[in-house]
């Protein structure tokens, strides 16, 4: 057990180290930016995994928190000096707002059953989108606005490293979170909420906690996203963002935490390469079709998501000796 754990962590550390030195060995800014983008969406997708994978909640309104982070950072940097401290403050502000809102929304909505809950979150985030659209003095509506990023991020490598650090930090924190006793209860809620209650766990609390954690992490992703663009508009609050997070999580494997990171990578890279192919081969002009086909194939070949399917295969291999009716052989005992 322990050694496997250490091996896994070892691989992770090597990977992170490789990613950290990457911008210094490669001078491809495109890659730096693409990776930054992947990291940001990884954070978002991991936050979604807390909901979907660990607590069994399908939310169609997750973009709401991403948007709050993005707007908090964008508005504060626009209104105050674009310094690092304002930036960090804005992240904190976004997280606090997201935490409070996800708390309130959670209390209001989490009593509902699956589909009804999902649609209610869609409604609430839809209302936030309208609010952002209408509150133009603050948000500039659909057109959005640009702002200055802290001088420090002029060098995109710095920003890349910051985002990578956030990703690693969030990953380890969330991993600890889901494998804590509280995380176990979240899984229990996912499996059988009513039974969790009768074991004496106040499931609503757990669901609210999960949605707050998810909301807060999503807000961080939003703040980073805003900085990466130095621009924000209402698109950060749209269903598209939620769907992206959802798809990344599912493709990578729900309830795996590392899966969403891989999912984010796969989706962003597939998009990148497919749209690149469009320029070379006319048949890829409609590359979006191939993108759709990837989703379909993913379900067929990786029904549990990439990580989930691989893990399952390993587990199967490990336990592959034909299982004889696990109970001890009565016949033999008696003889």
């Amino acid at each position: 057990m322990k050694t496997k754990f250490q091996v896994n962590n070892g691989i992770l550390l090597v990977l992170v180290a490789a990613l950290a030195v990457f911008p210094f060995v490669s001078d491809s800014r495109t890659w730096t930016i693409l990776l930054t983008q992947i990291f940001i969406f990884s954070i978002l997708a991991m936050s979604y995994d807390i909901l979907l994978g660990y607590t069994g909640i399908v939310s169609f309104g997750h973009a709401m928190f991403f948007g709050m982070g993005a707007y908090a950072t964008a508005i504060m940097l626009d209104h105050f000096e674009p310094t690092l401290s304002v930036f960090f403050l804005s992240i904190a502000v976004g997280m606090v707002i997201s935490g409070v809102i996800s708390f309130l929304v959670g209390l209001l909505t989490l009593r509902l059953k699956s589909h009804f809950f999902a649609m209610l979150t869609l409604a609430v985030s839809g209302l936030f989108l309208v609010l952002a659209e209408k509150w133009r003095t603050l948000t500039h509506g659909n057109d959005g606005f640009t702002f200055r990023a802290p001088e420090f991020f002029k060098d995109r490598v710095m920003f890349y490293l910051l985002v990578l650090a956030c990703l690693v930090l969030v990953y380890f924190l969330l991993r600890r979170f889901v494998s804590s006793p509280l995380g176990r209860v979240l899984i229990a809620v996912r499996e059988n909420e009513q039974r969790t209650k009768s074991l004496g766990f106040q499931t609503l609390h757990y669901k609210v906690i999960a949605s707050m954690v998810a909301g807060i992490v999503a807000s961080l992703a939003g703040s980073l996203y805003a900085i990466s663009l130095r621009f924000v508009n209402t698109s950060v609050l749209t269903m598209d963002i939620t769907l992206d997070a959802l798809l990344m999580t599912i493709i990578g494997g729900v309830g795996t935490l590392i899966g969403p990171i891989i999912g984010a990578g796969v989706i962003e890279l597939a998009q990148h390469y497919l749209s690149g192919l469009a320029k070379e081969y006319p048949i890829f002009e409609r590359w979006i079709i191939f993108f759709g086909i990837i989703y379909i194939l993913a379900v067929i070949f990786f029904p549990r998501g990439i990580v989930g399917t691989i893990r399952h295969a390993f587990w199967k291999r490990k336990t592959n000796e034909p299982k004889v009716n696990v109970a001890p052989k009565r016949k033999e005992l008696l003889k």
Partner: protein
Amino acid sequence: MELIINLLINGLATGMLIFLLAAGLTLIFGLMDVLNFAHGGLFAWGAFSGVWFYGLTNSFTVAIIGAILTGIVLGFITEKLIITPVYGNHIQQILITLGFMIVLSEMLKVVFGPNQIAAKTPPLLSGSWEIGDVIIIKYRLFIILVGILVFGIFQFILKRTKIGLIVRAGVMNKEMVQALGINIKQVFLYVFMVGAALAALGGVLMAPYSGVIYAEMGMEFAILAFIVVVIGGMGSFPGSLLAAILVGLAGSFMAYYVPALSLAVNMMLMAIVLIFRPQGLFTAKG
């Protein structure tokens, strides 16, 4: 007074139209519990193929039949290829149907070109009557009639036959239904095809309503349809009808009296309904 009547009629007509959009989803999502995000794609294909048939034959009847056939064929393909492997698994359903949705709407562009296309109202149904200050748009009356017809037919089928029961039982416990001697796979296939046909019908009827069709229309209206099915109470035709009319009327009256909130009206309606009736307006019965 005339004003109120106008708002009422138009709200009702819009509601009926929305009901037609949502009817297919009531079967597929409400009854079969399949989160079919490709529904909008089926709907858009109905609209495009209908307009194409109309252009070809100049007959709206042929257009409607053509659209329905398109829906049936696409429904067959969708169920066999996309849905069969993922029954009962919402997460996989989301991914695979979203993928298929992308394919469907891009294929529309391949087949019909990327531009929006004008959808003409058939002469017989175009124009409007004016009675005093009350304006009745003919096509809307037609929509109301079709809506009532579809509602009636499906109420009849679901009330008088076991099919609704079998589907709901199949969703709850597929093995047991099979053990009762019912080929549930086939039942699901047929119901899905009917749902797809209804989606296509919604599409072709929608086209002259707004006068234009475009590849992205599917997703836009699919969300509306999901809203209606959910606040109607999952799988209930009366529920969907009521919810759709509510959405139509709310839209119509809000746009007149509180225009500032009309962007938010659907979402507010849904939030209010779900907070006060967390199971939706109706529950599916028969």
